[in-house]
């Protein structure tokens, strides 16, 4: 049909994936998230036109402009239900949603919970900086108690959200936590999340150098902190394996989530269960079988006949 031909290189490279230069402040943790995302896409070689990046509102939600792929920059907090619509109706696509702590845990908190329940095929990266950056330093849902912001000059008083606990309770089927200074670890988490069937979420502690400098130094060995990776069970039957983290256990995931900050990093929880995409496809399959695989015209005609 089309006379248009593609001049795009066959192989997906980081160069092909780069778009506008990010508008983030120098030193922002989100740069590393973007770099790791490129790296993973390069590794996985997903067809370029099938990559779809979606975000809400916030500094990190500018993400789609910085990735050369089909993308959508939506309204505050609603990236997940939108991404669910894209994912459910287009099994050919790889759907990624990006956002921050305000977008994901505050204005979009309800959607995060329900997206986790529904388990659509998509990967959600939350760049958590414990502060509202785009609006210049207000308290965020993950700001620790005592954090001084423009809305809490005397220190934040509301109990912060515990993202890992919230996600486990909501029924998310893949939950991981990483740090923006840990490129290797983050890339590994991304890769495992993308390969997971269903809803995969990664919380990346991503420093806001402008409004919450040093927030995550405790998890950064180069700043004198400790980056302790979760030791996952291997199933080798050894005594030491008994002590390792069972990623299929909600109880153990809660225990990890209760650790004193900065806690541990890695996969907290993973459960194989049917994705919403699969469940809806089953419904379609059985619906079509029951109705005798009729086309739209015949289905409507049959219904009208019954209404006579």
């Amino acid at each position, binding site marked *: 049909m*089309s006379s248009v031909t593609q*001049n795009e290189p066959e192989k997906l490279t980081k160069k092909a994936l780069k778009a506008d230069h990010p508008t983030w402040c120098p030193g922002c943790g989100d740069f590393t998230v973007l770099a790791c995302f490129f790296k993973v896409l390069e590794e996985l070689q997903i067809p370029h036109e099938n990559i779809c990046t979606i975000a809400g509102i916030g500094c990190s939600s500018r993400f789609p402009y910085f990735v050369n792929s*089909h993308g959508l920059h939506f309204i505050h907090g*609603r990236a997940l239900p939108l991404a669910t619509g894209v*994912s459910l109706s287009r099994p*050919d696509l790889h759907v990624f949603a990006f956002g921050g702590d305000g977008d994901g845990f505050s204005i979009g908190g309800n*959607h995060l919970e329900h997206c986790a329940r529904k388990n659509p095929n998509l990967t959600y990266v939350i760049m958590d900086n414990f502060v509202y950056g785009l609006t210049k330093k207000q308290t965020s849902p993950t700001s620790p108690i005592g954090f001084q912001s423009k809305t809490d000059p005397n220190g934040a008083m509301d109990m912060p959200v515990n993202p890992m606990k919230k996600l486990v309770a909501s029924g998310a089927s893949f939950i991981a936590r990483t740090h923006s200074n840990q490129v290797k670890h983050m890339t590994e988490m991304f890769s495992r999340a993308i390969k997971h069937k269903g809803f995969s979420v990664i919380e990346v502690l991503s420093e806001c150098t402008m409004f919450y400098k040093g927030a995550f130094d405790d998890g950064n060995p180069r700043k004198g902190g400790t980056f302790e990776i979760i030791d996952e069970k291997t199933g080798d039957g050894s005594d030491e394996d008994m002590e390792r983290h069972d990623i299929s256990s909600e109880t153990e995931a809660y225990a990890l989530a209760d650790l004193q900050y900065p806690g541990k990093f890695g996969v907290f929880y993973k459960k194989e269960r049917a994705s919403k995409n699969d469940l809806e496809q089953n419904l379609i399959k059985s619906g079509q079988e029951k109705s005798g695989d009729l086309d*739209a015209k015949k289905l409507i005609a049959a219904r009208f006949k019954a209404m006579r």
Partner: protein
Amino acid sequence: MSLLAEKSASANGSNDIKDAVIRLAGNSQDGIQTVGGFLARLAGRSAQEVMTYMTIPSTISGGASIFQVRIGSGEVLSPGDEADFLIAFYQDSYENHLSSLREGGVCLYDSDHVEPDTSDKRFTFVGVPMTSTTVEAIGGSARDRGKNIFVLGLLTKLFELERNKLVKIIESQFKRKHESVLRNAMLAFDSGYAYETGDVLSQSYAFEPGEAVEGNRITTDGNTALTYGLLAAGVRYGAGYPITPWSSIMETLRTELPKYGGTFIQSEDELAAISSAIGFAYAGHIAVTGSSGPGLSLKMEALGYACMAELPLVIVNVQRGGPSTGLPTSVEQSDLMQAIYGSHGDSPRVILAPKDVEDCYYIAIEACRIAKKYSTPVIILTDQSLSSRIEAFPEPDISDVKEPTLDLQMQPSEFRPYPLDSQTKHAPPGTKMAEGKYPVVTGLEHDEWGHPSSNPELHQEMTNRRRDKIKQLASSLSKLEIYGENEGDVLLIGWGSTWGPIREAVDYAKRNNQKVSSIHLRHIHPMPNGIDEIIENFNKAIVVEMNDEGLYGYGQLATLLRARYSNPKILSLTKTNGLGFKISEILEGIKNA
């Protein structure tokens, strides 16, 4: 009221009647809707016009409920101002609804529960021990279940309805249930049919044969008609959140869409519902979401996004009564301004309104056509009365129904989704881009390529562009048809479900030598051009609508028409009591204008 005289002449003069309004009053669990539905389907199969009207209490179970069915041999346009027959199941149904009975009308009551004031000589009272006779007929532990079917039998005899056709309808309704259900129903039906009402009501009534219609007719309610319009137009994806009276549309879509290879998701809230629908639209499909007034308010921010990003979307709003939770099971047309102007900033979109149940089907198809062609959100403003009332109409022609296709054709390097000089065209994800440059759809102001930009001239140009495409639609719409003469004293202007009562009011006024005509808007925003020229030929133009006259004395559409045409001839007739317009109220409005 002179309207009554006209009706009594036709009902009392002979056994042959043209038109009858039967009101069944009982409780919501008595199954009176079932009886009304049977009568409506029978009329639909018997070349008779039919229209129903019902009220349902907004309680989970129980509560007073009515079902009114108007059957006629001529054109039936409204549910009828007053009932010719009132069937009262309980004392309170009798007390609350006797006022809806016309003088000379018949009150048929359950003498096991109702003690009427038989000294009231305005009406004919006929007592039938409905409950005890039903229990006797069915026997066993059935209690009084089945008295609705008993009443159906009684009415079948009284109106000389086609018994065999009705039995078939009953059978098809109950065939999926246990055989004892059908057996009991038939026992109750036969018992009602055989019941002798005695001397008081010696005559029975027979409808004059209606004009034979070519082809099949279907009998259904507005929400169902609208749902099948969406399916016929190729809608395969949607999302919603339950709210009365929209829920039945999402229930049907959830059940039906998988058969069509599609998906309807129940979302966690209204915001998620429209967001998922926008996701479907972005993915290249024509998608639907819907709600009722409160839910439409919740969807407004995302609706603004769809206007800005120019994504095709159909939003069904089944209007109910009042602000806030208001009157969830009553009718009103007070969401017009919200539909047109809701959301922030300048966000032009399209508003359509169906005029009757049949039109619910066609308006859904029109909404999808416009949404796709102009890449815009389209709101369908239907209402509670259309949602549940049942009408019979010619079976729609579905010969041009096609399976929807997804256009993922590769786009050239010069591809621009928002060209300043032509229609919006998106490249949904999955589309290959010739130069490998992929588009980002955004709610930020953007240039022709979709890149964010806050350039002042560009914002003006893009605002113009989004407005002008909707104006282009306006100029493509055909001129409004005038019902009645092209000139005269009063022009009635209506939109939505007031179509029927307005038309009946015009008919009545004309018979009484008043120079009254009407026009009706299906496309409300943009409205078709040329309304000013029509108004010119009348002394007064009265906009009839079910919303409040507001602080400045004009209903919502009247306000818009006055703003557009600055014509002092444009007057307003409004009501907000949760009920539709009576013919008499419109006639009164003409008199007082």
